């Protein structure tokens, strides 16, 4: 059971004193006690700062005959310095300083109860002001008063169903009245009364006793909640009266009185038992029995400061106890020590940050403790979800696992010696023991008045079994990650007495305990609580697997959070200043630091960031470094975890952005023979040369390596190289070499694949490289450039020819069979054909350059040479090759045909004197150089077939006289027919042109025939004036406008007005063809 309050007896009437205490009121340091004889005693009570500090109480004054009858109820409005008293059936006001009566509210005659409130309210105009209200119960009536200008003004009266037996102010202007059978929420402004239905009969016997004689009880809980109690049934409502989630308080006895002492619910039960509960969990925290106590006085609710009254009073007719709060830190620590984490968290959550500065840190810390407990119970998923929820520092979570997962931060590395049993006696008694010193105001009755504290039934058993619970001084000074400095205890030391081990572990803490508290080096309280969790039973086998699966989900979640801020290739140095937003959603906020750079908003990972080591704000750089360090731990552990539970995820992890420790990755992957993943990892980290060396060692070998047979051969290297960009060119060259030698075709894929990366490689360099390995590779590449990529650079076209020729000219080793070339004749021919075709097709090579490379006397190159000569326009030389060297007349003729087709003479050759290819050929046949014979039959053949394409005069001149005319018959016939056909053709054309001309004339005439009638009334549609006798324009669609307006209408119609002026001679004229429609052919225009 927790100690939340100490009951300190501050006043006890001596046995001789016959008077009895009837009513108390406390505010500030004052304590007012009303006695049964009408005397009012006023005390000043000091506020102890610790539960054991002596409490001074001093009787300031005693006003005898303050009231005629005993006081029934007291209240005060501090803002107005008045005390409100109900006595003798009247409510009266008194001056707070002088205790003189100010006024008796005469209408309150018969009053049984009142309730006061003061707080900020807004008037109709929304102007806030402090308003104090008083509600008085007189029979079934509620009398309402408003404090104004130093006195109460009655505002209104509301009559209820029955007489209220309790009265509690809820929200501003709302009053909760406990009636005989229900509660009602009264709106004092609108006078609306709403019944609050209450689920009948909570625990136990209450069920049918709905006419209970017990008073209905109500109290505010904090700012916007109320608790209603009837018998043992409880109900939470909002301050506006709406029922909240139904939670029952497990009372064993129905309470007699109820109150709220921030943040606890206190209730006084029969037999003078006080219960202190957490209103959120309903758990009983403490029970105190105070002999004879009948009066519970909790501080009046204060709107402005709900935590204003943390202390409350209890009184019996003869004794008063001040309930002194144990500070929250101690309470939370006590709960934590007992493993009651939920309770501790719940209480912390109800306390305002201002009252408990490290609230958030402490909640987080306790949640981590809870997660650790869940972990030790084997609830791994729950544990990890909780760790993830509070963003626990990764090291703290990871160390729960054995080294196979956690690496060297595992807390299972070192066998921890059994630790000394709990605990620091001194602190224990300080926390739990009853106060040893009490002020002896009254000197007597010490023993019988000292409070007894009992354990509530049903509290969870203590958790800490054989593990020491959190010792408050044994905080290992740890690095931020909460890792205790790794313990390296020799066995001798371990055998030594445990105390020394403990001091060895926590030297710092001990010395602090010994030394007087000094201002320096107080470890932050959060750190104090961080202790290595109880070394859980070893995780093994299936259980360990489950535990690791839980860990994975935590790590993945944390990883996701961190990746918003840090990237593996980030340089915190650079970032510290320039403050580049790492993620799209990262908000740039201006830090209060004077530095000009904007700070990164770390709010989402703030929980992860350690407190700064030197007080002030951490620099962005430090924060980033911290996060990166953490990310490294997370990813490395994730890798190990995958190895352990789900190795198929190793690949994905090493391929995505990750912070894995390279050494661990290397070690783990090699250990398990995952070289493919290792390659992926290296690639991801841009360690391409390492990756490629690895690939080569697996690929370039006789037999596959058993560990990774898939990597055998060049394919993996090729795939890898294809993904590299141009900036890695030297690497690409270096590591493609072995592949090109081993499998040239596959190796070429590195350079000819159609991916953007490959296509981005600098072509000239690649060509040079491939040439240097093998001309054939160069040729293959050049072919790729020219044919597939349609590269027009002359260099590649020239080189392709050069490459072909180089291959063709390659000599064989001085030879057996007398064959001179390396290539077989068939192969040479094949290349010859390629070159020939290329020289004919390509227009990009430089013929004058290329022709020099051709051997003159090798017949293989004759045709190629001819083709190049043709490109140079040297048709005579080209034809000489066909006619004289090759004596292939059909090829000569084909050559002529091709040239003729490429550039047919513009007009009839008969009329020009230009020499055609045919005449060149003819002249070669008929008029050869001296050492060649005249070739008559091919000449005649040529003439008969292409005679028309040769200038007749020229050909006749060439034909030797010895030729018989009969042999030329074909030629002439052909020639004449050709001429005739031209004549006829021209006649037909002439006729056609004539009829075309006629057609146009007709069209013209028709257009001119069109007329428009202009009457007196006809107006121009543009300017709306009469056309009268002005010069007009007629549009093709019949619209008539002024000549001057034509442009405007034309613009609207999207037409253009022709430049030439209209026929001005025609007034009332005809439409002319001034118009040409934009679309060229508008209707009605023919």
């Amino acid at each position, binding site marked *: 059971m927790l100690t939340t309050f100490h009951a300190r007896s501050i006043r006890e009437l001596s046995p001789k004193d016959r008077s009895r205490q009837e009513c108390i009121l406390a505010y500030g340091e004052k304590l007012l006690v009303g006695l049964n004889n009408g005397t009012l005693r006023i005390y000043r009570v000091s506020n102890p700062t610790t539960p054991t500090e002596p409490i001074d109480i001093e009787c300031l004054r005693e006003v005898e005959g303050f009231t005629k009858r005993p006081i029934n109820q007291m209240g005060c409005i501090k803002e107005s310095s008045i005390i409100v008293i109900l006595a003798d059936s009247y409510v009266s006001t008194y001056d707070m300083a002088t205790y003189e009566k100010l006024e008796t509210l005469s209408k309150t005659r018969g009053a049984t109860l009142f309730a006061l409130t003061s707080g900020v309210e807004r008037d109709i105009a929304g102007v806030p002001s402090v308003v104090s209200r008083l509600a008085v119960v007189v029979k079934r009536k509620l009398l309402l008063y408003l404090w104004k200008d130093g006195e109460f003004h009655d505002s209104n009266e509301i009559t209820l169903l029955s007489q209220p037996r309790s009265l509690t102010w809820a929200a501003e202007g709302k009053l909760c009245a406990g009636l005989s059978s229900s509660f009602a929420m009264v709106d004092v402004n609108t006078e609306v009364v709403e019944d609050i239905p209450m689920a009948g009969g909570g625990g136990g016997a209450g069920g049918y006793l709905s006419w209970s004689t017990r008073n209905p009880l109500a109290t505010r809980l904090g700012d916007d909640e109320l608790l209603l109690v009837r018998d043992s049934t409880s109900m939470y409502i909002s301050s506006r009266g709406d029922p909240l989630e139904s939670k029952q308080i497990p009372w064993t006895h129905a309470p007699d009185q109820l109150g709220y002492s921030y943040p606890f619910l206190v209730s006084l039960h029969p037999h003078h038992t006080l219960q202190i509960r957490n209103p959120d969990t309903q758990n009983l925290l403490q029970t105190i029995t105070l002999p004879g106590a009948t009066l519970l006085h909790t501080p009046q609710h204060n709107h402005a400061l709900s935590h204003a009254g943390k202390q409350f009073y209890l009184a019996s007719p003869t004794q008063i106890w001040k309930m002194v709060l144990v500070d929250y830190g101690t309470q939370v620590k006590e709960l934590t020590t007992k493993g009651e984490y939920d309770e501790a968290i719940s209480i912390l959550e109800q306390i305002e940050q201002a009252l408990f500065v490290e609230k958030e840190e402490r909640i987080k810390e306790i949640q981590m403790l809870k997660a650790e407990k869940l972990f030790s*119970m*084997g*609830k*791994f*998923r*729950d544990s990890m979800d909780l760790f*993830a929820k509070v963003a626990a520092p990764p090291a703290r979570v990871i160390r729960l696992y054995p080294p196979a997962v956690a690496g060297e931060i595992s807390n299972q590395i070192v066998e921890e010696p059994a630790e000394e049993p709990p605990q620091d006696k001194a602190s224990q008694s300080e926390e739990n023991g009853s106060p040893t010193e009490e002020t002896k105001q009254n000197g007597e009755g010490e023993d019988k008045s000292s409070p007894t504290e009992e354990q509530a039934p049903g509290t969870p058993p203590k958790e800490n079994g054989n593990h020491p619970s959190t010792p408050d001084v044994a905080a290992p000074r740890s690095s931020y990650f909460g890792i205790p400095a790794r313990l390296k205890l020799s066995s001798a030391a371990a055998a030594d007495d445990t105390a020394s081990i403990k001091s060895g572990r926590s030297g710092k803490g001990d010395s602090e305990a010994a030394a007087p508290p000094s201002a320096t080096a107080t470890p932050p309280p959060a750190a104090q609580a961080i202790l290595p969790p109880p070394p859980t039973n070893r995780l093994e086998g*299936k*259980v360990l697997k*489950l535990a690791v*699966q*839980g860990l*994975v*989900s935590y790590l*993945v*979640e944390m*990883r*996701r959070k961190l*990746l*918003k801020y840090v990237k593996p290739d980030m340089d915190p140095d650079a970032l510290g200043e320039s403050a580049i937003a790492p*993620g*799209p*959603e990262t908000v740039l906020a201006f830090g209060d630091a004077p530095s000009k750079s904007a700070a990164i908003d770390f709010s989402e990972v703030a929980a992860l960031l350690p407190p700064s080591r030197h007080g002030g704000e951490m620099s962005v750089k430090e924060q980033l470094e911290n996060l990166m360090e953490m990310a490294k731990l997370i990813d490395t552990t*994730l890798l190990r975890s995958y190895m352990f539970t*789900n190795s*198929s*995820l190793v*690949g*994905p*992890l090493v*391929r*995505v952005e990750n912070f894995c420790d390279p050494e661990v990755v290397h070690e783990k992957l090699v250990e398990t023979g995952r070289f493919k993943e290792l390659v992926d990892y290296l690639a991801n980290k841009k360690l391409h040369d390492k990756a490629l060396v690895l690939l080569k060692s697996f690929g370039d070998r006789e037999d596959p390596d058993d560990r990774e047979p898939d990597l055998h051969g060049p394919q993996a290297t090729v795939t890898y190289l294809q993904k590299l960009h141009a900036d890695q060119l030297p690497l690409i060259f270096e590591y493609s070499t072995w592949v090109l030698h081993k499998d040239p075709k596959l190796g070429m894929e590195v350079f000819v694949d*159609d*991916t*953007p990366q490959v296509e981005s490689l600098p072509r000239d360099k690649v060509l040079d490289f491939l040439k240097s390995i093998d001309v054939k590779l160069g040729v293959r590449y050049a072919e790729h450039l020219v044919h597939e990529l349609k590269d027009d650079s002359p260099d590649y076209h020239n080189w392709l020819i050069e490459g072909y020729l180089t291959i063709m000219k390659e000599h064989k080793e001085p030879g057996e069979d007398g064959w001179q070339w390396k290539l077989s004749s068939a192969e040479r021919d094949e290349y010859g054909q390629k070159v020939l075709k290329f020289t004919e097709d390509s227009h990009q090579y430089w013929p004058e350059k290329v022709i020099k490379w051709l051997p003159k006397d090798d017949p293989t190159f004759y045709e190629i040479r001819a083709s190049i000569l043709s490109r140079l326009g040297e048709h005579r030389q080209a034809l000489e090759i066909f006619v004289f060297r090759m004596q292939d007349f059909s090829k000569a003729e084909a050559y002529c045909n091709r040239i003729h087709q490429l550039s047919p003479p513009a007009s009839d050759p008969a009329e020009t004197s230009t020499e055609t290819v045919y005449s060149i050929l003819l002249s070669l046949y008929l008029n050869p150089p001296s050492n060649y014979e005249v070739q008559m039959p091919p000449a005649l053949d040529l003439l008969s077939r292409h005679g028309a394409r040769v200038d007749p005069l020229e050909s006749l001149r060439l034909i030797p006289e010895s030729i018989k005319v009969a042999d030329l018959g074909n030629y002439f016939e052909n020639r004449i027919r050709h001429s005739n056909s031209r004549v006829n053709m021209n006649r037909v054309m002439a006729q056609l042109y004539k009829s075309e001309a006629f057609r146009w004339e007709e069209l013209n005439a028709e257009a001119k025939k069109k007329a428009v009638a202009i009457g007196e009334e006809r107006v121009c549609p543009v300017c709306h004036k009469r056309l009268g006798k002005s010069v007009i324009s007629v549009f093709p669609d019949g619209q008539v406008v002024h000549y001057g307006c034509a442009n405007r209408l034309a613009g609207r119609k999207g037409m253009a007005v022709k430049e030439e002026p209209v026929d001005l001679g025609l007034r009332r004229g005809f439409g002319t063809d001034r118009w040409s429609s934009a679309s060229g052919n508008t209707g009605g225009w023919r």
Partner: protein
Amino acid sequence: MSSRKKVLLKNKNSDYKLKVIILGDSGVGKTSLMNQYVNKKFSASYKATIGADFLTKEVLVDDRLVTMQIWDTAGQERFQSLGVAFYRGADCCVLVYDVNNQKSFETLDSWRDEFLIQASPRDADSFPFVVIGNKIDVDDGKRQVPQKRAMAFCQSKGSLPYFETSAKEAINVEQAFEVIARHALAQEEAEEYSGDFGASTIVDIGADADRDGCAC
């Protein structure tokens, strides 16, 4: 938690709930594909998806009625905004790229890897992915990723089914999702068969062990 769900599903016996997640760079047409499939609608205006959203559709797979829950995501933020919970229990992941956008193709691999990490499926190698090359209706000249290369990628990742679709013209969308449903169902059944270690507590192990015992 998921084991309870499964028991429920088993009892109904015809009704399976399949969770399908669509991933890919932003603008590739994830939302459009989903809309085309579920609502038979296409909108040419681009509205960036915010956070994550899902649509459901009931389909028959081999006579079994299956409810497909298709989760659409906001591509640009990568995996950083959606928690692990979002990916837990996925039965199939659809990787979408735009055939006219080389980059969207190149990121497929890391979408796949990140998904695997976030979802932590028991056996990453057999987890069903379906690859979709979208927007094939766009002018041929603009195409950047040849079908051949996409298919080679799918092959290298373990013969992933590949579809070329147009959400705009409703080409192949139906077919792609049919295969997605089929694979998701197979995955769901496989998961069920092997028992779910996902909701793991010590107590669960016991239960699992018992069930295994009975089944034999």
